[in-house]
């Protein structure tokens, strides 16, 4: 990390101090509000992505939000929270590429406030409620810096009716392996065929490393989830995904997987437009994609074929109640 911006209000926050101490050689710059910098116009996302800065900030206002319809794994009450904005990875299909003006990483250091809000939200429901942490960032990728997961798990260990999903592609699982597995936490990995990882998920761990991490977590007693989302179209789709499923089924105990979700590549129209403007040369975005309602996705016949192929393969390895197809 080369440059760290710190909001004046968190200069003496213990987490901010700890993160700053971790990078003694970085430029430490005090700012008033992270939005002055993060939301400023005239930023080049693609250039910033090559050399992102870290912004340590205080998250005020609403911290726990209801998920969009369809974003769930069977729970009735579903929420997401974003202790970070932006991701260290550079996946060409990710909606985060078109979400913010800036590619800098914002870390909200007041995680205690997130936990208070989660507690209070969980208290409003008699049934179980779900909290998704990997919505605006990868849940684990920057954890060596933020150490958010440890704090978070301490709180969730006291909230039996609240479930946490950590969504990641990262192999930073040390904090999870250091402690006993919690029954109300699911560590969910996005999984893609290796050639797609190499071509479209820049900077992410390989399929083999992800499966190794999943295997270790499973062996340690953690509930694991598999997220085959987004499925990307290719003329050799069946070979690519068939081979990937074979590898996954071989390496993991599929009967013990908590949940599997499946979704074909789709983006809201506005995000797709921004993504094309950012990466006009991306092969993924050059493939035939059409508008359906407010979303951009592959033609319906292509989508159906992709989904059917994957569902057929998954049905050989998991029970129907483990599967959650995304709309």
């Amino acid at each position: 990390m080369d440059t760290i911006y710190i909001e004046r209000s968190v200069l003496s926050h213990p987490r901010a101090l700890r993160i700053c101490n971790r990078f003694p050689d970085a430029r430490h710059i005090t700012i008033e509000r992270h939005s002055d910098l993060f939301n400023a116009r005239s930023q080049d996302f693609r250039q910033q992505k090559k050399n992102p800065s870290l912004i340590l900030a205080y998250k005020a206002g609403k911290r726990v939000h209801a998920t969009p319809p369809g974003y769930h794994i069977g729970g009735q009450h579903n929420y997401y929270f974003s202790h970070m904005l932006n991701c260290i990875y550079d996946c060409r299909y990710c909606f985060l590429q078109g979400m913010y003006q800036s590619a800098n990483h914002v870390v909200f250091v007041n995680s205690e406030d997130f936990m208070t809000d989660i507690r209070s939200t969980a208290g409003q429901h008699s049934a179980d409620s779900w909290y998704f942490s990997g919505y605006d960032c990868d849940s684990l990728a920057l954890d060596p810096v933020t150490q958010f997961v440890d704090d978070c798990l301490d709180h969730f260990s006291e909230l039996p009716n609240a479930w946490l999903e950590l969504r990641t592609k990262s192999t930073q699982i040390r904090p999870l392996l250091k402690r006993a597995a919690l029954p109300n936490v699911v560590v969910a990995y996005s999984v893609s065929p290796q050639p797609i990882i190499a071509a479209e998920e820049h900077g992410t761990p390989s399929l083999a490393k992800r499966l190794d991490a999943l295997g270790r977590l499973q062996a340690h007693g953690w509930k694991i989830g598999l997220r085959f989302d987004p499925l990307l179209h290719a003329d050799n789709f069946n070979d690519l995904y068939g081979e990937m499923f074979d590898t996954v089924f071989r390496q993991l105990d599929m009967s013990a997987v908590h949940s599997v979700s499946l979704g074909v590549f789709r983006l809201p129209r506005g995000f797709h437009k921004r993504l094309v403007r950012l990466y006009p040369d991306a092969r993924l975005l050059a493939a035939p994609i059409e508008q359906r309602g407010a979303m951009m996705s592959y033609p319906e016949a292509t989508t159906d074929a992709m989904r059917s192929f994957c569902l057929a393969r998954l049905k050989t390895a998991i029970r129907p109640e483990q599967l959650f197809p995304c709309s």
Partner: protein
Amino acid sequence: MPVLIPVTVTQFRYTDGMSLVCISTALAAESRPFIDALNLRHVHTRGIRLYAGDGFLLLQTGLGKLQAASAMAALLHSRPDVGAVLNAGVCGSAAEIGSVHLAHEVVDVATGRRWFPHLPPQRHAGQLPSCAVHTCDNVDISYRDGVLFDMEAAGIAMAASTYLSSDAIQYVKVVSDNSSATLAAFEPARASELMSACLPAVMTLCDWFRQNHLADDSARIIESCSRDILGKVRHSVSDTRQLQRLLQRHLSLAGRAPDISTLQRLGSARQVRARLQQAVQAITLRYEP
């Protein structure tokens, strides 16, 4: 006081497709080291004082943020090939005379408006310390710690940020006066000597900028293909935009441009589009191990 050593700059090789870097200064004395080191020649341009050389322009704006903003806007409006702006100049500060700083924030003191340049990695910025630059309408001699005072940076930021992104506008400042050697005692001729100190930093930033903005081959191929088609088949603005996107998609998927001569023989933009769409859909997309 640091010893100021005159710097010789190896002549940069400017190649086709690279964008120009514009160095902006306020005063003739600040411009001189750059003019000499980069072999710049005066270019007669109406309303602005401009020097040009291989890959570089130097814009001498005159004193104050309004002069800086109006000159910079005029230049960037007329020269879309300028890809980066480096504002270099002397400033007041509590820091040591002759010390060189990069700006991490530019504040227009009169309006409170702020700009945040996206800083280059430290290894590409010569490990320069960074500071906030406060642009004042009148000379400020408060010499506060951690703040540089100048009279142009906010004007440059205001004008250049309309045309360029925050990574492509950087500010390099040399301290010319502080509480122990105030502005009253400052000789303008000394500005040239001080500015020589920031020459290496400016050149390092130029290198970083050029590495970051290497010429995009695909953009040039599309531009050339689309020009060839537009020369033969009439396209509206909207048609042209769709054509260019289809050309881009073809290039990305197939790794080469489509056969332009076939497209040139078609009778309308719609036919060109239909043919290109067909071609794009026929290209296979495979991810290979």
